[in-house]
């Protein structure tokens, strides 16, 4: 049975924890709005871009000498997995669900006889995958100093990825990130970026365009940008998902802390009453003895 003083201390400590989680929740809510705005603002570009690229790819795609970024290297031996997670924890299952998906995929590919390489973006994912897959790591991108993810960050990752692709380090690249559905629901997603994969029906435009320079030249120019654009969109989705996950995790924590305080307060009051009753009994029995 803890003493009254112990109980009091515990109540105080839970109260200050609640203050912290509450504050974190509010900060996450504010950041979530910003992240959502950023994701919203980038959507027109991504949509137009994919439509144009899809249209071009459909018309050039099957021709001889199509760019490797589109047609692939002709093999699928070496897989590059770009695992994008957050730089910070305390956001519920956000990081671990991405890591889990990536790990399952890595094991699956290994079992099928492919070679797996992993490029991590964000410290938390690296930590989560370190134990089982450290020997597969080929690089890490640290975004902990970046306050607001910009296109530059995505372009840098894209460039790195393309340099590795040109050097023949891998055949297929997949990015892992979390798609933002709502504050309480984020879906870990795997998306293939190299060779470029287009959804059915995308780019189904009837307009016959004049191309300047040639279709092939434009396609060759756009495909590398497409990689960066997809990475950028994924980073933004991830940013919104992270804040959403943190918000709901901290909301839960705040509620739990509240419940705990109630419970501890009841326990505190009970023990205080017990102590008073005890003292009274002592006084009364003392008086009777006289």
């Amino acid at each position, binding site marked *: 049975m803890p003493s009254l003083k112990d109980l009091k201390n515990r109540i105080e400590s839970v109260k200050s924890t609640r203050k912290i989680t509450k504050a974190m929740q509010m900060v996450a809510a504010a950041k979530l709005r910003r992240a959502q705005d950023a994701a919203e603002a980038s959507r027109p570009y991504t949509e137009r871009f994919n439509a*144009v690229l899809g249209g071009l790819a459909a018309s050039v795609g099957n021709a001889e000498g199509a760019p490797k970024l589109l047609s692939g290297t002709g093999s699928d031996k070496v897989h590059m997995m770009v695992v994008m997670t957050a730089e910070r924890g305390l956001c519920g299952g956000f990081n671990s669900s991405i890591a889990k998906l990536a790990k399952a995929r890595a094991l699956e590919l290994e079992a099928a006889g492919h070679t797996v390489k992993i490029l991590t973006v964000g410290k938390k994912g690296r930590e989560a995958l370190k134990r089982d897959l450290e020997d597969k790591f080929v690089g890490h991108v640290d975004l902990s100093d970046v306050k607001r993810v910009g296109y530059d960050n995505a372009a840098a990752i894209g460039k790195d990825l393309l340099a590795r692709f040109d050097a023949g380090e891998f055949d297929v690249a997949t990015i892992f990130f979390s798609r933002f559905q709502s504050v309480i629901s984020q879906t870990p997603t795997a998306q293939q970026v190299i060779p470029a994969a287009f959804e059915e029906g995308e780019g189904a435009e009837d307009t016959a365009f004049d191309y300047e320079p040639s279709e092939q030249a434009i396609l060759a120019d756009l495909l590398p940008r497409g990689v960066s654009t997809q990475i950028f969109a994924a980073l933004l989705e991830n940013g919104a998902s992270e804040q959403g996950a943190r918000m709901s995790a901290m909301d839960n924590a705040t509620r739990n802390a509240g419940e705990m305080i109630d419970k501890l307060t009841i326990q505190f009051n009970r023990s205080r009453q017990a102590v008073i009753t005890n003292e009274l009994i002592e006084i009364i029995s003392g008086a009777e003895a006289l």
Partner: protein
Amino acid sequence: MADMMQFDLVSPERSLASFEVTEVQIPGAEGDLTAMPSHTPTLTTLRPGMLSAISTDGSHDFLVTGGFAEITAAGVTILAEQAVAKSDVTQDDMDDMLAASKAAVDAAPEDAVDAANKTHADVVALAGTLGLSGS
């Protein structure tokens, strides 16, 4: 009243402009071109340069560094990797762009040196047009 068409300028980070225009002057990779309403559908890549959208209330100028333009009969959509309104361009921006294009020249593989040099020259010329230092 002159024919109007829709003009959209979007960068990866946000949509920069969207309004009705009468003509758009585009710094295309193969040369400048002006798009007016009912232009043949055209897709062209951009070189670093000045993009001017001319609407009824005057000309809106933007500095763009690359990307592509999609021209249809009903409008022009510019997807620029980087775009800044002309009035907001500072020497710092220019210096960044010069440094980036210079770095691209140095890093370019043998067969792309010419293209990279041309891009760099475009950026230097652009700095000249704006009255900023191009070195």
